């Protein structure tokens, strides 16, 4: 659906040439929710903006459904943009217009009768759950409500693509979740290919199908979200994932627990089996769970447990082997 072909963006700043995006090539599939994650200044926003040409690539091409949009201008460009909705971190609503008029504004890109506009706006407001705020001004809305208006505006023209530039970074956790749920609903209900930029892995984990990890203008890794979380390859990705699945133990535990301290990683189907209780029954060992977490990433369980194994050397070794065979990965962390 969206094809980046050697996309390169650089701009002059303070006498130097800053390369914001370096030779990026990948494809976003129709209907998926695609995440782009990375620290600030990684070039994710710049890359996102090449899709609706708010930023023109310096070299390379962006293809949408096979047609090269890189050099679109004038009416072609405007028509392209009506097919691509966009929402922003700071919502960017027109402050002097009511909620209704903010959404109606987007409809001015195409010819609509007054009645059509009214119907469409009310339909959009209902979809985002703001029917009762139709005549309010943005200043009277909460952050979450503003973003809902932003979403209503972005999808009013029935776009095929929705670009989300840090859509939840200005929102608290609870509101973030409700906005992400809404984006998911919009994605499924309207079949809009959605691209979300975020610096938070939690956002990616919650709704994305696939994700590209960016740093310094380059895409380091691209895979489905489950694989990125369970087996990150690049060092940068590993540290991003570790920040999210954070299992820090107090240091004294590493010394006090003389025997084996195991980090057990489960994933997929295996995470649903009762491996720990089976081990305790089969072998003469004591199992003491010190830390643990099970995450559901794209509905697949992914768990990490830190377990202390105590018993005779032989039994411990056998138990370890038994666990290793039935889980994704076992690591001894206090050797």
């Amino acid at each position: 659906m969206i094809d980046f072909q050697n996309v390169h963006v650089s701009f002059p700043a303070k006498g130097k040439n800053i390369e914001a995006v370096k030779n990026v090539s990948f494809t976003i599939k129709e209907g998926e929710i695609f995440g782009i994650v990375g620290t600030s200044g990684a070039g994710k926003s710049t890359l996102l903006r090449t899709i609706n040409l708010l930023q023109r690539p310096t070299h390379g091409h962006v293809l949408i459904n096979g047609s090269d949009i890189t050099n679109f201008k004038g009416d072609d460009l405007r028509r392209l943009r009506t097919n691509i909705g966009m929402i922003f971190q700071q919502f960017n609503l027109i402050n002097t217009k009511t909620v209704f008029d903010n959404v109606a504004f987007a409809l001015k890109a195409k010819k609509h009768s007054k009645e059509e506009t009214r119907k469409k706006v009310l339909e959009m407001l209902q979809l985002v759950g703001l029917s009762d705020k139709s005549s309010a001004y943005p200043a009277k809305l909460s952050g979450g409500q503003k973003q809902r208006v932003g979403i209503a505006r972005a999808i009013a023209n029935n776009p095929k693509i929705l670009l989300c530039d840090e859509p939840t970074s200005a929102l608290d956790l609870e509101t973030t979740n409700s906005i992400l749920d809404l984006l998911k609903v919009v994605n499924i209900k309207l079949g809009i290919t959605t691209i979300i930029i975020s610096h938070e892995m939690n956002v990616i984990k919650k709704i994305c199908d696939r994700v590209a990890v960016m740093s310094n203008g380059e895409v380091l890794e691209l895979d489905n979200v489950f694989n990125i979380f369970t087996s990150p390859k690049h060092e940068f990705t590993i540290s991003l994932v570790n920040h999210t699945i954070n299992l820090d133990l107090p240091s004294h535990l590493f010394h006090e627990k003389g025997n084996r301290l195991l980090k057990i990683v489960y994933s997929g189907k295996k995470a649903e089996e009762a491996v720990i209780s089976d081990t305790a029954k089969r072998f003469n060992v004591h199992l003491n769970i010190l830390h643990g977490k099970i995450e559901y990433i794209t509905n697949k369980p992914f768990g990490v447990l830190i377990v202390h194994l105590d018993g005779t050397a032989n039994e411990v070794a056998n138990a370890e082997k038994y666990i290793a065979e039935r889980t994704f990965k076992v690591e001894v962390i206090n050797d």
Partner: protein
Amino acid sequence: MTESYIVELLDNLKKAFLETFLMCGTSIGLSIILGVPLGLFIFITRKGLFWENRILNFIGGFLVNIVRSTPFVILLVLLIPFTQLVVGSTIGPLAASVPLSIAAIAFYARLVENSLCEVDKGVLEAAIAVGVSNFIIVKDVLLPEALAGLYRGLTITAVSLVGYSAMAGIVGGGGVGDLAIRFGYYRYQTDIMVITVILLVILVQLIQSLGDFFARKAEKN
């Protein structure tokens, strides 16, 4: 103070105020009609905006600066031939309105440009991303979002014009300021001077309050 003296004073004041209103009204009207488009033009030809054009932007800005850097008294004299051409006379309040208008247009154009700069770039970007025409962006986003600033700028322009119009006496423009100079200063009639100054203070206060009222109304929050 005799009755005839007061009657004469009131007559003079009435005439002077009418002249001031004529001069300021004309130039404010023209600064809205021409200053807004000029300021808008300078703004949208800036770098990164949808009519980006360095040469036109420079020319627009330069013209505005020439007028703004010329002391008003000099402008008044310099523009005499132009005034003759436009109104067919070089004396009287209507003639004085010509240089006043030119100064006001340039002054207000710069304030308009500044107000437009204050419009959130993100809001502008969001409007561009929607795919509407540039005309709709100007009409529905740029001008409404800058409206409070436009009112404030107009208030500043109007207050400055009241001050400038005092100098219009030089070309026989008349007006309240001129009255103060002729009677109060040249003829040592301090009472007239005091009265006109008080009236001017009230006038400026009124303009300022009116401007603030509209600006607050335009802010929508």
